[in-house]
């Protein structure tokens, strides 16, 4: 249908001409319009407390204590059950969050501006590995780290970025792809490149060398620091692609640990959902699939723009880490994703595929017709609240989301 082809060309054009730049870090309450008291933004499509999985509940209890809305985790859970908190998806606030995806008013959020279109997106600062809130952790260690991010690192990053020209992310990600990152489960190169870009301004604006050293050490010691920047980048690229009449391109894929949801450009902000799948992967010593929670997080926004599982060929080390097979098998993941995408990104290329661009622009028609589901690289959380990460793996987006979206899209086009 010509109208769809033209709409999808426009969607792809907007994706490829986006110019995401990291410009600031501010408290979420200052910059997320409508984010109020006792409001908790979470990953994935909308969900109520009764249907939330263990780690999501654990994170909500923890963030309520962090914000001072409850004295302890028990009281926080009681308040949540009684309806005292307003749960909303990050995506409705131009925001994204990894795994449980907690975003509340006093948390610092990184701001990425798409300089082509002027829209901004937001994501909290990555907490590091181990026991962290994004995997449902909520003990004193987790909350103390969040306080340090709020009181020390967030303000320091914001001050440094505001007196700079910002960090251009498109080129930085392009370099990261040639250095073995796919920006979901491997961010080693991009985290280093970002630290290199930020360090001079952090040093120039520092008033306390001990704090500076602590900040540099935290970023340098966190191989996944860039993940949250990549996610905000994905959101900044995809938001302008929303609401193109007649477009079958996916603008968001996201999971809340219970439901997997997608949004499609031509059907606006409607979520098409299906039960989440269980990742297949490798587990840390002492853990197994018995401990795992189903798939979770807004981080699939990176696959939506052609990174993560779609760029697996760029990161053969990830294929081993997530249990997806040999290094040579990594290329097959990327080739499969080319079957379901509208084009490729000539600025984000993969050396091992003779500089082929990453597969870009998921077309729901191609997914439904081929039966090839988007591949997602992901961390795996423990299914119980407060336990944290237990492994990493690969998961498929449920085809049922795309089938439901195709029916919804056809109805919107008047052809159902």
């Amino acid at each position: 249908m010509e109208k769809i082809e033209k709409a999808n060309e426009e969607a792809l054009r907007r994706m490829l001409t986006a110019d995401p730049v990291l410009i600031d870090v501010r408290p979420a309450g200052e910059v997320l319009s409508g984010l109020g008291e006792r409001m908790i933004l979470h990953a994935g499509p909308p969900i109520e407390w009764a249907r939330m999985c263990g780690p999501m509940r654990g994170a909500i209890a923890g963030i309520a204590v962090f914000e001072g809305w409850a004295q302890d985790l028990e009281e926080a859970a009681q308040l949540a059950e009684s309806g005292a908190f307003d749960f909303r998806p990050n995506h409705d606030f131009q925001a994204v969050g990894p795994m449980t995806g907690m975003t509340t008013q006093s948390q610092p959020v990184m701001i990425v501006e798409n300089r082509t279109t002027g829209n901004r997106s937001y994501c909290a600062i990555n907490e590091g590995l181990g026991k962290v809130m994004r995997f449902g952790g909520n003990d004193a260690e987790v909350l103390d780290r969040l306080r340090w991010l709020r009181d020390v690192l967030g303000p320091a990053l914001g001050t440094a970025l505001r007196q700079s020209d910002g960090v251009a992310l498109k080129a930085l990600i392009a370099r990261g792809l040639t250095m073995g990152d796919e920006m979901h489960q491997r961010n080693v190169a991009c985290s280093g490149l970002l630290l290199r870009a930020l360090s001079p301004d952090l040093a120039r604006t520092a008033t306390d060398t001990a704090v500076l050293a602590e900040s540099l050490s935290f970023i340098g010691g966190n191989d996944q620091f860039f993940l949250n920047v990549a996610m905000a980048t994905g959101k900044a690229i995809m938001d302008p692609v929303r609401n193109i009449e007649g477009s079958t391109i996916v603008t968001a894929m996201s999971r809340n640990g219970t439901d997997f949801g997608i949004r499609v450009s031509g059907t606006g902000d409607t979520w098409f959902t299906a039960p989440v799948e269980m990742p297949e992967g490798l587990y840390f010593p002492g853990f197994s699939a018995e401990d795992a929670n189903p798939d979770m997080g807004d981080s699939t926004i990176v696959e939506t723009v052609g990174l993560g599982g779609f760029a697996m060929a760029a990161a053969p080390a990830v294929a081993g880490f997530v249990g997806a097979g040999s290094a040579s098998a990594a290329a097959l993941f990327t080739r499969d994703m080319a079957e379901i995408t509208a084009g490729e990104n000539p600025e984000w290329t993969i050396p091992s595929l003779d500089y082929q661009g990453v597969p870009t622009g998921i077309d729901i028609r191609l997914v439904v017709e081929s039966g090839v589901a988007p591949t997602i690289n992901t961390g795996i959380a423990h299914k119980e609240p407060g336990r944290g990460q237990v492994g990493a793996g690969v998961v498929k987006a449920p085809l049922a989301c795309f089938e439901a979206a195709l029916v919804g899209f056809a109805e919107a086009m008047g052809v159902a």
Partner: protein
Amino acid sequence: MSDTKDDAPGLLNAPLHVVNVGLEGFARDLEAHDVPVVQVEWSLPARGNAKLADLLSKLSG
């Protein structure tokens, strides 16, 4: 038809060259017997769902 009849003994006696289209199980069985196989991934459009296939036809035409 006569060619087919004449070639049949040769086909059975010569090494097999197999292209398997669709279900991978057949390819795996042959590989287990050291028969080289080229696997072609194929499945029914829309997993065989006639309603979705009809919608795809309307949205792709």
